[in-house]
């Protein structure tokens, strides 16, 4: 029975789970990872981050060819999209990466068990695979089962015409009119993909602005840019019903504040209002593992649930539902279980939106600082004034750095522009070290580089930008 007894069993093989498993194995713990999907990498690798980024890149190329190549003096006669080939490439990227995780498991001697895990008793998991059920035991169990699409009452997802992000990543044809319900990260990214490929896209949002969790200035700018790209926005509106008939969906829309309803027709409706924790079939309630009223597993500062020996990380415990946040937690819990002091700095977790231009942020927004009564200074620098951005003809957007008015400590940064998701890393690093805006300003940045916009924004905090 010893081959079924482990130090650590991770239930869920997504970014949180597989990273926790690899780290635990690195630290010498006998580790197993249970995943029912049939491939590792979770939502992220299979139906989330990776496939969407692959399609975003492919569709971006197409849009660039259509709208930008002429500026560069590049002419061609016929331009068309082979959607099947585009999807095939995306699939290849995904399978390559998921197989890569399997390879990492082998390398680190993590036992990969394919099947659905159910906690039957503290320290005991029943795994139901295609070959039947087996029982494994563990000193510590880490729940990393992630999240699923939040359904919208009245708009039932069939993944044909009323789809979730999963369906939106695998459409067989470019829709004529796609309605995206929800102007958050997922809605805007996938809406961008299909708009670029030729669909008419309307984004319907309950609140009054796109990207409601981002800095207000950034949200406004992003919406403006997407509108220029042809995406239509209907804000302050809720969708109450959807009727699918012969390939056409009729939606019932109402103002969020109440009022007269209206109808909108589309051949594709993407429900992207959010994600909710996934704990189906885990047996948590039988074991008495506490979850909160929104379904998230309750944990303390060390990822412990109320049941000794059972831990939880990632989307399933809430907080920022981001792959890299789950990864940080995976490393932390593995280190804690190995007797080390693992911890996550939640104040410095970046968030990226992979539209074009990209949006990246870390730390507090201006709205949050104002609400907390924190005195801050703001330094903003437009990419229009960055020589690299001008050279590559990709200069929409700005870098904004927020710093404490007294100590100059960086409290937050918000970037909308080319490569924002990568540019933010510097500020994240700085914040991790308690950097002042002046520290970034006094660090050498290569020229010509988009990173110089970050340096100039830091200078702008002190009202002494050079190139503006």
């Amino acid at each position: 029975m010893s081959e079924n007894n482990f130090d650590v069993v991770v239930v869920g093989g997504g970014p949180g789970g597989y990273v926790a498993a690899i780290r635990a194995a690195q630290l010498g713990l006998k580790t197993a990872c249970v995943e029912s999907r049939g491939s590792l990498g979770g939502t992220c690798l299979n139906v989330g981050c990776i496939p969407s980024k692959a399609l975003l890149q492919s569709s971006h190329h197409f849009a660039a060819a259509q709208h930008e190549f002429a500026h560069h003096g590049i002419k061609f006669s016929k331009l068309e999209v082979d959607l099947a080939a585009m999807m095939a490439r995306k699939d290849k990227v995904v399978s390559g990466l998921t197989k890569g995780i399997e390879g990492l498991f082998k390398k680190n001697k993590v036992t990969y068990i394919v099947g659905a895990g159910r906690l039957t008793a503290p320290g005991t998991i029943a795994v139901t695979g295609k070959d039947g059920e087996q029982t494994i035991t563990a000193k510590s169990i880490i729940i990393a089962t992630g999240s699923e699409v939040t359904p919208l009452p009245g708009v039932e997802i069939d993944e044909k015409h009323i789809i979730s992000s999963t369906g939106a990543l695998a459409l067989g044809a470019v829709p004529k009119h796609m309605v995206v319900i929800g102007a958050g990260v997922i809605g805007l990214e996938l809406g961008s993909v299909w708009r670029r490929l030729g669909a008419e896209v309307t984004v319907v949002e309950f609140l009054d602005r796109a990207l409601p969790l981002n800095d207000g200035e950034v949200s406004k700018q992003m919406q403006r840019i997407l509108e220029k790209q042809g995406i239509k926005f209907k804000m302050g509106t809720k969708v109450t019903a959807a009727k699918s008939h012969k390939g056409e969906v009729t939606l019932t829309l109402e103002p969020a504040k109440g009022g007269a309803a209206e109808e909108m027709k589309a051949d594709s409706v993407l429900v992207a209002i959010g994600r909710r924790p996934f704990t189906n079939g885990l047996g948590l309630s039988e074991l008495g593992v506490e979850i909160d009223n929104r379904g998230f597993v309750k944990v303390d500062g060390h990822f412990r649930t109320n049941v000794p020996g059972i831990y939880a990380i990632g989307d399933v415990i809430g907080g920022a539902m981001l792959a890299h946040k789950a990864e940080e937690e995976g490393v932390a819990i593995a280190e804690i279980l190995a007797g080390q002091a693992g911890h996550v700095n939640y104040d410095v977790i970046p968030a990226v939106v992979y539209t074009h231009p990209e949006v990246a942020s870390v730390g507090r927004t201006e709205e949050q600082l104002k609400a907390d009564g924190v005195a801050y200074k703001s330094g903003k620098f437009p990419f229009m004034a960055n020589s690299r951005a001008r050279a590559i003809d990709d200069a929409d957007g700005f870098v904004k750095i927020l710093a404490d008015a007294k100590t100059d400590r960086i409290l937050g940064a918000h970037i909308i522009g080319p490569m924002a998701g990568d540019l933010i890393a510097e500020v994240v690093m700085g914040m991790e070290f308690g950097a002042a805006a002046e520290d970034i300003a006094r660090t050498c940045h290569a020229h010509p580089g988009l990173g110089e916009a970050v340096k100039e924004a830091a200078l702008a905090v002190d009202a002494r930008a050079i190139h503006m």
Partner: protein
Amino acid sequence: MSTQIVVPALGESVSEATIAKWFKQVGDIVAADEPIVELETDKVTVEVPAPSAGTLSEILVETGATVGVGAVLGVIGAAGAAAAVKPAAVAAVKVPELAVAAPAAVGGHPPAPSARKLIEENSLDAAAISGTGKDGRITKGDVLSTLEKPAAAPAPVAAAPAAPRAPDVREQRVKMTRLRKRIAERLKEAQNTAAMLTTFNEVDMTALNALRSQYKDAFEKKHGTKLGFMSFFVKACVTALKEWPAVNGELVGDELVYKNFYDIGVAVGTPSGLVVPVVREADKLSFAGVESTIAGYGKKARDGKLTIDEMTGGTFTISNGGVYGSLMSTPILNTPQSAILGMHKTMLRPMVMADGSIQARPMMYLALSYDHRIIDGREAVSFLVRVKECIEDPQRILLDM
């Protein structure tokens, strides 16, 4: 060919001075030995003469800055050389022995770049700043809050910011001069070290007044200096000191040092504070010698030209509060001396004479503050009585009686 203006030796145990005033500006022509800048130290104000003739081409240290002995204050170019245009005020030159090199990494982690800049600009000691950055790194905020605190740990020349009290329009804040600060220190030193007491007596000035009236014109004609009271008091004290040597002594460690010379300090008030030039070997000087020495010191003191050597090494001090109207007071010892005589205002008072009659006599109260560790009560009282006797009958000084 240019020459540097350098801070000269300032006297024993004085290692730094503050720039009080530049007499010349960049571009001015100076003659050799012409006073070019005034330095202020703990004890005295010193003028620095120009080392050569020429044009003052550079001022390297501004008024108010602190410099050490040997520091370069400015440059004199060859006569007729165009003055080098020195762009806007140069930041204070750091005293060499206190110069801060790149702030040391604290706990192995260097301060953040912004913090480093502030540390260097304010001559702070990085080791004394607690870092709140990752792994204890010093952040810009840490340095800013250190600068806000009144100078506790930083090097003496660090910018000590104003106390955090809101300004009151009814107040006027004047920073203590070096001299005043030093005087304050020494006063406290005296109080904290010696077992200080004061004994009083009074002296009838009738005989001395008469003597002075009789001889003062002829004295001045012969000796070229006025016959004041001080020569008599100095001589009276010397007489008494010879008889009560403990009053002229000094406690050094656990040794009583009895001195066989009589360097009498005579306190002089100046606008910038009390200074005590020393009349050397007062026992060997004539009355005229004592008077002219004191007169000379008085002028120098008012002009701020007393040297440090002129003010150190006294064995006993006489202070006269009477010129300001004081009737009686308890003077503080002039460390490291063991006693000080306080003279006061002469006032006509009704005195009972030997025959029982009452007469109005010009009386002066005398005070002797002394260090009881080295001088006992009997010695102090007897000393003062002796001074009184010599003043009331100056012939006693002549006859050593």
